[in-house]
C-alpha cells in the first residue's frame, strides 16, 4: 500500500468527518496567548471563519484521526463494511495541520474524532495525545473539541477533559431500538456511562476548585465548554416526540451544553438498510427550534407536543406558533403588563426582544411603533398581543390564522 500525502489524507479524513453537525467554538473560558507567548485565544463567543455552500459554518478544523473503524454502524460512512477509501493521520500530522491553519486565521481550533481502531482505549489515547502535544508542546490556546469514544476508560476521559474545551459522545440514534438495528455493536448504556463520566469529571473539578486554598494555583478546568452530543434524524423510525424525550433526558442527566440534530444525509456507499432520500432539513430545523423552547423558553416537552400531531412537529410553521394556535385562550397578551414568562410564549418574540421589552417598559408604555424597533417580526406578533394602540380583536380567534403564517400550499411533486 503506497502511503498517502497529507493532502490526500486531508481530503479523505475531512470528507469522513462532515456528517458530524457540531462545529461550535463557543462557550468556553477566555484565554489568550499573551501570558504563554504561544499561539491562540478563545473569547467566549465562537467565530465562524468560513461557510460552506451547504450553509454550515466552518469554525474548526474538523477531521478524523482515522476512518478505519471496527464498528459497523449502518448509517456511518466509515463503518467496517463500507468500501470507502481509508487513511490515517499520525498525531503529529494533525498538530502541524492545526497550527498551520490556525496561524493563518482559517480556524478557531480543532474538532477531532476518530474511527475506532484496535480498542476504544487505544483510540481515545491517540485523540488525547494530539491535544496534549498541542497544549503542552506548542502552548496552543485555541479551541479543542475531542470526541470521547464510548466505552473508553474513565481515566482517559478525565485526561481528555484537562486538555479539551469540549467533549462529546454521540448517541447516534434517538431510540434504543434504532441503535440496536442500525448500530448493533454500540450499546446505549455504554454511551450514557461515558457521558456520566464526563459530568462526574466536571463536577469533581468544580469541587476541587471550591476547596482550594487562597493563593494556591488554580486547579485545571475540566472541559469548560461542557459536553455535547449528536443524534441522526430521519434514518430510523423515531418520531420527534421520541427524539425530544431523549434530548430532555440527556440534558437533565449529563448536563449537556447542546444536543445536535443531524438530518440523515445520504452517504456514498450506503448500506441497503437506509433511505436514499434527501436529508429532512426542515425537520432538523424544527427540532432545533423545539430544543430552544425546552432550554430557553420554559416549555415542557409535553407542551411543545400539544402543537404537534402524531408525535411529529408541524413542518410548515414553527413549534411555538403551532403551540400558540392551540392555546388561543391565553392570548392576546398585554405587552405592557404581562410577566416575562408569558411574553416568552408569544410567537415572534425571542428572548432578546423580551428582555428589551421588559427593560424599556420601565421608562414608559409601548406602542406598536415602539415594538417595531425592538423586534423584527411585528407582523407575526400582531394576532397575539395588545399594546396601547393595538388590539387584535377577532384576529386572535380567526379560523384562518394558521393559513396566514403557513407557506402557500405547493403542488406535490409526483413520483414517476
Amino acid at each position: 500500500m503506497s502511503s498517502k500525502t497529507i493532502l490526500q489524507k486531508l481530503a479523505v479524513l475531512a470528507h469522513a468527518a462532515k456528517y458530524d453537525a457540531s462545529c461550535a467554538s463557543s462557550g468556553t473560558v477566555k484565554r489568550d496567548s499573551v501570558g504563554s507567548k504561544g499561539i491562540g485565544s478563545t473569547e467566549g463567543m465562537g467565530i465562524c471563519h468560513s461557510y460552506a455552500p451547504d450553509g454550515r459554518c466552518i469554525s474548526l478544523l474538523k477531521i478524523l484521526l482515522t476512518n478505519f473503524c471496527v464498528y459497523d454502524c449502518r448509517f456511518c460512512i466509515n463503518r467496517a463494511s463500507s468500501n470507502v477509501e481509508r487513511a490515517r493521520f499520525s498525531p503529529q500530522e494533525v498538530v502541524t495541520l492545526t497550527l498551520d491553519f490556525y496561524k493563518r486565521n482559517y480556524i478557531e481550533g480543532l474538532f477531532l474524532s476518530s474511527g475506532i481502531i484496535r480498542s476504544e482505549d487505544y483510540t481515545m489515547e491517540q485523540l488525547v495525545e494530539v491535544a496534549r502535544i498541542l497544549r503542552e508542546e506548542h502552548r496552543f490556546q485555541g479551541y479543542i473539541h475531542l470526541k470521547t469514544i464510548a466505552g473508553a476508560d474513565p481515566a482517559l476521559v478525565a485526561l481528555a477533559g484537562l486538555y479539551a474545551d469540549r467533549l462529546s459522545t454521540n448517541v447516534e440514534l434517538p431510540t434504543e431500538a434504532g441503535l440496536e438495528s442500525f448500530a448493533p455493536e454500540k450499546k446505549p448504556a455504554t454511551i450514557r456511562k461515558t457521558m456520566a463520566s464526563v459530568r462526574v469529571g466536571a463536577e469533581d473539578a468544580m469541587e476541587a476548585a471550591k476547596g482550594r486554598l487562597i493563593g494556591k494555583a488554580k486547579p485545571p478546568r475540566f472541559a469548560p465548554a461542557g459536553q455535547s452530543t449528536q443524534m441522526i434524524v430521519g434514518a430510523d423510525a423515531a418520531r420527534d416526540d421520541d427524539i425530544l424525550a431523549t434530548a430532555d433526558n440527556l440534558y437533565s442527566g449529563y448536563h449537556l451544553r447542546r444536543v445536535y440534530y443531524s438530518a440523515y444525509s445520504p452517504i456514498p456507499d450506503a448500506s441497503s438498510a437506509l433511505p436514499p432520500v434527501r436529508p429532512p432539513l426542515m425537520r432538523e430545523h424544527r427540532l432545533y427550534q423545539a430544543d430552544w423552547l425546552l432550554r430557553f423558553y420554559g416549555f415542557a416537552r409535553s407542551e411543545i407536543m400539544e402543537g404537534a400531531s402524531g408525535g411529529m412537529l408541524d413542518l410548515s410553521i414553527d413549534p411555538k406558533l403551532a403551540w400558540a394556535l392551540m392555546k388561543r385562550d391565553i392570548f392576546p397578551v398585554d405587552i405592557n403588563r404581562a410577566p416575562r414568562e408569558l411574553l416568552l410564549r408569544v410567537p415572534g418574540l425571542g428572548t432578546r426582544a423580551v428582555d428589551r421589552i421588559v427593560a424599556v417598559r420601565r421608562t414608559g408604555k409601548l406602542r406598536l411603533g415602539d415594538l417595531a424597533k425592538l423586534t423584527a417580526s411585528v407582523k407575526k406578533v400582531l394576532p397575539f398581543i395588545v399594546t396601547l394602540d393595538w388590539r387584535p380583536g377577532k384576529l386572535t380567534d380567526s379560523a384562518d390564522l394558521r393559513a396566514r403564517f403557513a407557506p402557500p400550499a405547493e403542488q406535490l411533486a409526483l413520483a414517476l
Partner: protein
Amino acid sequence: MLSTPGDFAEWRGVARALLAGGVAPEDVSWRGAEEGASLFGDQAPVSSGAAVSLPRELLTMADRVICHRDPQVPARLYRLVWRAARERQLLARTTDADVDWLRKTDKAIRRDVHKMHAFVRFRRLGEEEGRESFAAWFEPDHRILRLTAPFFQRRFYGMDWAIVTPDARAIWEDEELSYGPGGTRDEVPDSDVVEDQWRTYYGAIFNPARVKIDAMRAEMPKKYWKNLPEAQDIAPLLAGAGARVERMREMAVSAANPRTEKWRTRVADDLLLDDDLTSLDAVARAVGQCTRCPLHCNATQAVAGEGPAAARIMVIGEQPGDQEDLQGRPFVGPAGQVLNEALGEARLDRRRLFLTNAVKHFKFEPRGKRRLHQNPTAGEIDICRWWLDKERALVQPDLIVTLGASALRGVTGKSASIKSMRGAVHELAGGTKLVATIHPSFLLRLPDRERADEERAAFVADLACARKLAA
C-alpha cells in the same frame, strides 16, 4: 474640524470642550479634514467649564460608532452626548430615534469587527530565528482596524504579523503593536503554501446533499469573497453537487467489505450472559444488562449491591439516585452522606455491611438541568426483586435493615407501613431477622429543625439496635 476620521480620542477632546462650553448641537458643524476648511474658519467659541459625566455605556458605544464611515457620525454622536448629559435614562429608551440610530450603527460596527476577526487571512512571509511572520490584506466596511488589532494581538502573540487595510495598517513585531498608513493589496503576497490544504479541506467538508446557498451568503456576503482563498471553489463545488448526489443515489447499495467479519465475533462475546450467577460479581455484570422493565432505557446504569459477600448485615435502600446512577455505586449521593453519618453514630462500619437497593435502576422525571426522583411502582419493585433475591441468596445475612417502604416491599413482597413494622424485630423465612426503618432521604426533606433532629435520633437508634442484634 477633525483631522483623522475614526479617531475617538480626537472627537472626544473636541466634544468634551463643546459640552463644557454649553454649545448646543445645532450650533456645531463637524467636518473631516478632507472636506476642507469652512468659509468662516473653525474657531468655535469654546470655553472650558466643569467636566460632564456620561454613562460609560455611551462612551464605549461612541468609541466604536466613531469608526463608521457616514460623515454625519461625529455630529449625531455629539447630539447624543448633549442629550444624555441632560436626560438621565436616555440610553434605556431604545425607542427614541437617536438611541435607535446609535444602537443600530453600533451593531453595524460590531458586525464589521466580527467579520474582520473571522475573514482576515494571513499569508506567510518567512521565518527568522524561529519566529514566523505573516501579513494580511483586508478591506473592512468601516475604519475598524484600531478596534480589531488587540484581538489579533491576544491571539497571535507568538508570531509577527501585519494587517494592511486601505485606511491604515497594524503591525505586531517584537511584541509591540504599532499603526501606520493605509496600503494596497500588492504589499501582501498573493498566495500561501498551505492554501491548497485549506481549499482541499473546504471542498471535503461540504456536503453536496444539503446545498443552502442563501444561508451561506447571509453570513459570508460576496463582498468578502475576494479576500478568501476558498471562495474561488464555491462555484465549482455548487456546479458539481447535483451530479455527486445523483451518483450516490445510483450506487446506493454496495457489497459489504469483508473486513466486517473479524469484529462480529467480539460483539458476540460481549453479549454472552453468565447463566449461573454464583458470585456477586456475576450478578453485578448480569444486572448491568437487565431489560426486565423499561427503567433501563433512561438510567445510565444498573447499580448492583456493594460489600463483602460474608457481610452479616444487609442494608437495603429504595433505588439509586442521581449520583448513584452516574457513579454506579449505591449510597454515594446526599442520602448516602446522611446514612454514612448515622452509621458512624450507631458505630456500624460501612465497609462490613452489604449495601444495596430494592430497585437497581434510577427512576426520574427530567426537569431542565435536573432529574427529579420518582418512587418506583410496586410492579417495578416486584420485577426487580429477582435481583435482590440473588444478592440475598449469595450474602445470606443474619440481619436485613430495610430503609423506607420500597425496600420493605422488596424484601417482604407486601406493602406494609413502616410505622407498623418499626421498633420490633421480625423474622423472615429461613430465620433472617428484619429491622425496618425510614429511608435517610426522608430526613433531608424535613423542613422543621426540631422534628428532623427527633427523626434522625430515632433512625440512629434503629441502626444501633441492628448492630446489637447482629452481634
